[in-house]
């Protein structure tokens, strides 16, 4: 891609030939200019058509639908705000919000720092086998949430499961072989967090690594001359240097956390004991699609969307303020 960096390449059009060529094509000239003018419209139209039908229309419709109660796609009755009223008075909804929020907090405050730590460790010039390590850390991502859910439902098994066996071997006094990761409500969230840690740490690490490799190395040399230690280098060079990518990872992984569904659904075979693994999207699926109330599903969907948008805005506000104090 090096040629694309310089927008004025040496490849000049063959001037000597062009006049004769255009004269040869003279009879076709009107067709030629017409297809040039029409081209962009033709190129975007298949997309625009699909986008209008399957992208824009459902969004508009979902706003309306949120004020209807439906029984399957056939029967729809206008109910005003009662979908929202019911939702905000449904304890299950609040359980789902609490679980999803807890999961998002763990993602941001445990998973992201660990990903960054891993990237920092890996970003060493002298290190051999970097590609292998990077591939190893990224490999869980190839499985996807569904398959990881199925796999870990076996790993977390009581007594025989690999997780219990390893933890029990490492610290027999602390971890019992019979820890009920998936059937004791206390352990369900930790099980989900651990699984997602295994799944996404390497994924976020790739982003942080790309950010770290873009930081100007001369800055570190200058800092060494000034006698700044590793911690101050990290605080004053690394963190500001990776800030754009860090904000990107923070916002996207928070948004992703609030969409959590497949992982607990497959891991627990549903919402888990006492709804301890119920997430907002799972609530939407159960109360919207399994019962056939599409109006209610829309209401839950919009509540989630607005909540997530609000949180993203706060995050961008906070990280923007951080930039202010730095300068």
């Amino acid at each position, binding site marked *: 891609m090096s040629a694309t960096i310089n927008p004025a390449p040496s490849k000049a059009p063959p001037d000597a030939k062009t006049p004769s060529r255009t004269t040869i094509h003279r009879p076709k000239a009107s067709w030629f200019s017409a297809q040039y003018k029409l081209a962009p419209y033709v190129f975007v139209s298949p997309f625009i058509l699909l986008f209008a039908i399957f992208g824009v229309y459902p969004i508009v419709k979902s706003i309306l639908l949120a004020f209807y109660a439906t029984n399957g796609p056939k029967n729809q009755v206008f109910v005003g705000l009662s979908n929202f009223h019911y939702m905000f008075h449904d304890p299950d909804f609040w359980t789902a919000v609490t679980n999803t929020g807890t999961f998002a907090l763990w993602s941001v405050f445990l998973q992201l720092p660990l990903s960054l730590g891993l990237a920092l*460790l890996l970003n060493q010039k002298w290190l051999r086998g970097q590609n292998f390590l990077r591939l190893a850390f990224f490999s*869980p991502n*190839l499985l996807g949430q569904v398959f990881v859910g*199925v*796999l870990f439902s076996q790993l977390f098994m009581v007594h025989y499961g690999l997780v219990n066996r390893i933890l029990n071997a490492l610290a027999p006094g602390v971890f019992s072989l019979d820890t009920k990761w998936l059937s004791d409500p206390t352990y369900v969230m930790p099980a989900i967090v651990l699984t997602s840690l295994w799944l996404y740490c390497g994924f976020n690490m790739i982003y942080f690594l*790309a950010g770290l490799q873009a930081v100007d190395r001369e800055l570190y040399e200058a800092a060494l001359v000034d006698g700044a230690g590793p911690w101050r280098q990290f605080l004053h060079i690394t963190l500001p240097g990776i800030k754009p990518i860090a904000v990107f990872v923070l916002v996207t992984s928070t948004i992703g956390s609030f969409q959590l569904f497949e992982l607990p659904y497959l891991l627990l075979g549903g919402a888990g004991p006492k709804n301890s693994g119920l997430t907002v999207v799972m609530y939407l699926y159960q109360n919207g699609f399994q019962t056939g109330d599409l109006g209610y599903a829309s209401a839950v*969907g919009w509540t989630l969307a607005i909540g*997530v948008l609000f949180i993203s805005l706060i995050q961008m506000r906070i990280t923007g303020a951080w930039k202010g104090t730095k300068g």
Partner: protein
Amino acid sequence: MSKSIGSNFARVMIAMLLIVCALITLTPIVWLVAATLKNPDDIFHYTFFPPIRALTLDNFRDLFHLTHFGRFMVNSVFTTGATVLVQLFFSSLAGFALAKYEFKGKSAVTGLMLATLMLPASVTMAPLYDLLYHMHMVDQYAGIIVPGAVSVFGIFLFRQAIVQVPDELLQAARLDGCSEFRIYWDIVMPVSRPMIGAFCLMSFMGAWNSFLWPQIILHHDNLFTVPIGLNQLLGVYSSKYGMLMAGTLVGVLPVAALFMLLQKEFVAGLTSGAVKG
């Protein structure tokens, strides 16, 4: 970070830590492979691999003989393949138009697309189901492929890649009498090869691993894709661990194989959207 923490001791510690982390990461995958090769009676008897004489392929045989897993694979290959191809064609064509032409309504279209990118899919699931029900696409492959053909993310990815193609190259082709579609097909697409690789892999992973939407749309198990088929098997054969693990392993192989093929492009494409940030 150079010599200050680059002492030999620190280096050994860092290397050890990384190796331990890598081992922890790989352990479940190794266990998965081992579990598929064990007899049902042995699965918890040996932590990982059994002795060679106890190895068996029965789990794979059961998977394809007792269940419709073969059918699930065919369904997944078809719906995923179709989704990727359609997405690739429409996204790159529209991305090209947005990158290299001025036309009426361009900024309006771009703005509208950006706005929809911010909405999670869960918002539109209900009305989309409603729409597909009236279009008779529920419980059809089309119900997965057609709405999945729109990839706003893909358009932005391609627009960003194609903007970097020099205008002079396109202009020279025009002077040679190239039609606009031939410019797209013979110049823009070959030049964007790395982005095509990255996009195909991301799009493939997304479609292959997709669970919620197929679960909503597909009702008959002869149409099931691998993820929802596996979920069904989980309920029916809950005690056949080895067979379920075989299904998991076979189910992730296509993505893994494609990843090995397109690894370089993938990492480049993954971060290209973020660096601008």
